[in-house]
């Protein structure tokens, strides 16, 4: 077999896409609700997740938790533990990490197991022949501490806050605008610490072979994950390979490498055997990142006609000492609503709790619900319907920077959503509609999430038999990457999707940005598109035509009145295309975001304060929709996430010692099936964003959760006549107001 003929295409997104190629291809695969190629494996339990495939000779590690909140570990009963049945090693290694890496760090997080910064921090790893022996021995661990827990800062109110200069901004005069406004609101909301609660707990299986480390793990961004792990271990990134073929949910908790990867790698190195370390659910909760709690002050003002004049959004969030990540709560506040007087404030406090990091839509997921709930308050104060109030205040351009929008479909989403939902039937007077003991109300929210892209490369190989192989280190964390990348390649090459195989989740494959920030589909998708486009050029050469005049469909190349099968055209050759996309000026000169609107009906028990979401409906615009089914699933998941945020989810921290007390899925409440009503979703299938990327597609993974909770609390206000500004709205808070 001869070497493949290689071609490549690089594109930096500096300008508007003029080609709109995916609207001119004819295979008809793109955007369809194609089933996931790997779906049968997943539903039959035969897709192997990280901890489900152990090489022969694998031994097992279990992390030991710190039982103090702050201080130093000065001793451990390692000798006694080593005498326990099956125990092979008790590892305290300076390379072990305090907290997981933040997404995209590409370097090790803070290292050293001796200093304790939060209760539950891993301080050692016990390795034994069996999982049960490791766990038993780790539970028998007794550490000696230099205990400084009394100096720990646990409650946000007691934290000292930093005010980073680069994260403050203002224009006009907010105070004066507030004073002179016809109507204004000045309100404080709080959101609690939350946890990702992915179904698959974090796990890593590590082994060394010929000086090279392989880790089967559950991670989202393999290219930077390999660099993080290499840096933590002090080896070259070339010496690290990470495999994450299937990931059982991440929501940001697997953006960076975590304790299990570093621990397993060190143990495997020391023992010369494969080592598996899986986190117990309780360890996932207390050692991986949480979403920071927040305190948010929102000031909004408008004139007598309901035209907004002021937008102020100041936030207080937290993290561990030294961590650079700070929940970007105000991310979409600068551009969503009009108003010439504006202020953004950001403050970060240091707490002795497990680290804060990215969780599904970091920033907007908790920022938009608060600003949108405050918008509902201002609309009420102004006596204007919340839908109408918003429609009056959609800015022509980004009011903070003056940049034009790449596109802005917010008004259409709101109008379409209101019509579908039957918004006209909303009770005009809060607290006026009743069904037996149940108070009925409706609420809505605008939905906003910034659009981002990251550098990504993919390889698409067209085989002599007319099949194609797509390869990138992109991950599929349940989002549908396998589906959409298959569809993009099939559409571009004119192949039925069954002829395309997509291989993901191996850091040895061409590097993508990975899954995170709703960037994955647009970034890795574009790289696949570009790789296929390079192949199209090569095919056009062989057809002796201009690439613009080439049509590919069902394995046949067509140019004018000539038609040849691809396998015929390839004549035994293999074509290998590599595509690379990089972000460029387009995101600098045009404000890019995905848009939506959600509408909700709730019933609130006047007896118990229980809140039932009865209807939830959303309309979304995210550029080209690559797969109508997986996109809808993302929106469903996001809206259910929003129900949890509004009504259920909260990390319960013991204020005395920072202990994460509800660290299991029985007590950390995410919505159960009964909490989720029928959810109606409409995607604006005609949307295209030419500034986003050549596919004209934008992020959708996190979009739908950015505002759901505002629709719900606004509906509760409409039902009861009371505002609830502290999430989650549990029944005790409702009872207190119902009187």
């Amino acid at each position: 077999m001869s070497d493949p003929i290689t071609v490549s295409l690089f594109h930096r997104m500096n300008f508007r896409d003029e080609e709109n190629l995916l609207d001119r291809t004819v295979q008809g695969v793109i955007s369809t609700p194609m089933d996931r190629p790997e779906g049968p494996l997943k539903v039959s339990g035969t897709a192997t997740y990280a901890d489900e495939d152990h090489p022969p000779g694998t031994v097992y590690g279990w992390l030991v938790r710190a039982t103090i909140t702050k201080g130093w570990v000065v001793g451990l009963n390692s000798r006694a533990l080593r005498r326990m049945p099956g125990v092979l090693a008790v590892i305290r290694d300076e390379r072990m990490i305090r907290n997981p890496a933040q997404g995209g760090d590409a370097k090790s997080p803070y290292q050293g197991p001796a200093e304790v910064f939060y209760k539950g921090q891993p301080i050692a790893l016990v390795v034994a022949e069996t999982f049960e022996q490791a766990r038993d021995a780790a539970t028998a661990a007794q550490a000696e501490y230099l205990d400084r827990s009394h100096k720990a800062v646990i409650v946000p109110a007691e934290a000292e806050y930093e005010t980073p200069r680069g994260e403050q901004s203002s224009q006009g005069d907010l105070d004066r605008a507030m004073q002179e406004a016809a109507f204004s609101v000045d309100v404080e909301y709080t959101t609690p610490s939350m946890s990702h609660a992915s179904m698959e707990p974090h796990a890593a299986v590590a082994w060394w072979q010929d000086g090279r480390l392989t880790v089967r793990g559950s991670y989202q961004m393999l290219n930077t994950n390999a660099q993080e792990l290499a840096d933590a271990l002090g080896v070259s990134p070339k010496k690290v390979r990470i495999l994450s073929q299937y990931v059982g949910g991440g929501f940001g908790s697997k953006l960076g490498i975590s304790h299990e990867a570093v621990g397993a790698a060190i143990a495997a190195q020391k023992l010369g055997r494969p080592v598996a370390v899986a986190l117990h659910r309780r360890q996932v909760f207390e050692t991986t990142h949480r979403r920071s709690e927040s305190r948010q002050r929102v000031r909004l003002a408008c004139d007598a006609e309901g035209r907004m004049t002021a937008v102020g959004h100041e936030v207080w969030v937290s993290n561990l000492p030294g961590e650079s990540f700070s929940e970007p709560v105000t991310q979409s506040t600068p551009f969503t609503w009009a108003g010439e007087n504006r202020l953004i404030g950001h403050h970060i406090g240091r707490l002795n709790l497990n680290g804060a990091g990215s969780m599904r839509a970091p920033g907007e997921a908790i920022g938009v619900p608060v600003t949108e709930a405050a918008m509902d308050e201002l609309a009420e104060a102004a006596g204007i319907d919340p839908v109408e109030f918003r429609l009056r205040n959609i800015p022509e351009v980004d009011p903070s920077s003056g940049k034009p929008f790449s596109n802005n479909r917010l008004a259409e989403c709101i109008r379409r959503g209101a019509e579908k939902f039957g918004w006209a039937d909303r009770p005009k007077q809060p607290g006026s509609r009743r069904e037996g003991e149940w108070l009925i109300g409706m609420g809505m929210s605008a939905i906003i999430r910034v659009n981002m892209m990251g550098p990504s490369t993919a390889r698409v190989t067209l085989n002599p038999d007319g099949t194609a192989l797509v390869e990138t280190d992109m991950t599929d964390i349940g989002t549908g990457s396998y589906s959409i990348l298959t569809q993009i390649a099939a559409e571009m090459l004119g192949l039925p999707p069954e002829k395309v195989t997509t291989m993901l989740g191996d850091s040895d494959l061409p590097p993508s940005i990975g899954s995170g920030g709703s960037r994955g589909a647009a970034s890795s998708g574009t790289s696949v598109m570009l790789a296929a486009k390079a192949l199209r050029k090569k095919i056009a050469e062989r057809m002796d035509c201009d690439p613009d005049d080439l049509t590919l469909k069902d394995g046949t190349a067509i140019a004018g009145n000539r038609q040849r099968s691809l396998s015929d055209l390839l004549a035994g050759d293999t074509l290998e295309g590599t595509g690379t996309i990089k972000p460029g000026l387009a995101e600098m000169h045009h404000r890019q975001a995905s848009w939506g609107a959600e509408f909700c009906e709730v019933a609130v028990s006047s007896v118990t304060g229980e809140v039932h979401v009865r209807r939830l409906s959303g309309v979304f615009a995210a550029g080209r929709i690559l797969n109508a089914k997986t996109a809808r699933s993302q929106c469903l998941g996001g809206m259910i996430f929003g129900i949890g945020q509004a009504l259920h989810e909260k990390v319960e921290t013991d204020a005395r010692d920072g202990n994460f007390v509800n660290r299991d899925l029985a007590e950390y409440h995410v919505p159960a099936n009964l909490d989720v009503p029928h959810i109606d979703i409409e995607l604006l299938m005609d949307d295209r964003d030419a500034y986003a990327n050549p596919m004209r597609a934008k992020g959708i993974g996190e979009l739908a959760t950015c505002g759901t909770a505002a629709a719900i609390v606004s509906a509760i206000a409409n039902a009861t006549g009371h505002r609830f500004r502290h999430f989650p709205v549990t029944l005790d808070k409702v009872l207190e107001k119902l009187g």
Partner: protein
Amino acid sequence: MRPFDYTRAHAPADAVGAEARIIAGGTNLLDLMKLQVETPDRLIDINHVGLDRVERDGDGLRIGALVRNSDLAADPAVREGWPLLSKAILAGASAQIRNRATTGGNLMQRTRCYYFYDIDAPCNKREPGSGCGAIGGNNRQHAILGASDHCIATYPGDMAVAMSALDAVIEVEGPAGKREIRAADFHRLPGDTPQRDNELQSGEMILSVRLPAPLGGRQIYRKVRDRRSYAFALVSVAAVVVMEAGRMATARLAFGGVAHKPWRVPAAESLLTGQPPSPELFDRAADAVLAGARGQGHNDFKIPLLRRTLGAVLAEATQESK
């Protein structure tokens, strides 16, 4: 999990008097063993001893200790004569857990107190004398009635609340023979021995639960919780009310989620019995139920919540049928 010995019983006699922890469905005990909250040296598995049938017992019913929760809730005789029991069981856990959990095991389930579950935290129930983490800690789910300075944990179950209201009797057998314990008396108050959840003595085993003749009337189990399924009760109210000529001829009440045991207050039931229903009367009944109630901070809301829920349940149970 600590290593343990395992034996399988083939008849109740194999398990009665055995120096071992009994395991049936394992839906609670195994979790606790994995966390080393429970560290039994020996387990005896009673899944193969029979005792898995629901049988007529005169006008009543005898439920074997190994009858699965899902089977019991779906049993036509139970649904017909003791719907309260069926409703309470279906309000608990998840379908998967109910398929596995047994009648006897459900009575033996342990508290869900965060501090009981955390072997690094103080807990007098888990480790007598170590203190109570929940007092002064996170106690949203904890007791407002019958608690002590040593323990404020709640009994988390639903089935036993209904059994208590229905005057069920638990039949147990120990080395000294068989005896009966009223369901309402089965669980204990924590006092200064919170490590003892119930009256079962060492070596004793639950054989069955006997339900007396059906009461008829309206039977309501209302469970108030933080989400609509798969959450423990903040407050639950089990009520059986039989109306005759506009008056409450029979009124049975039991409450879950508020104490170390299903909470039954005969004085409240007496107040109602023979009286025509009225909101004022329901409120007086709530006063009787809540006599001595005390919040722990995070759970203070349970006091008004119980009052309001009881009022709504009694209003529903006594309303004229349409």
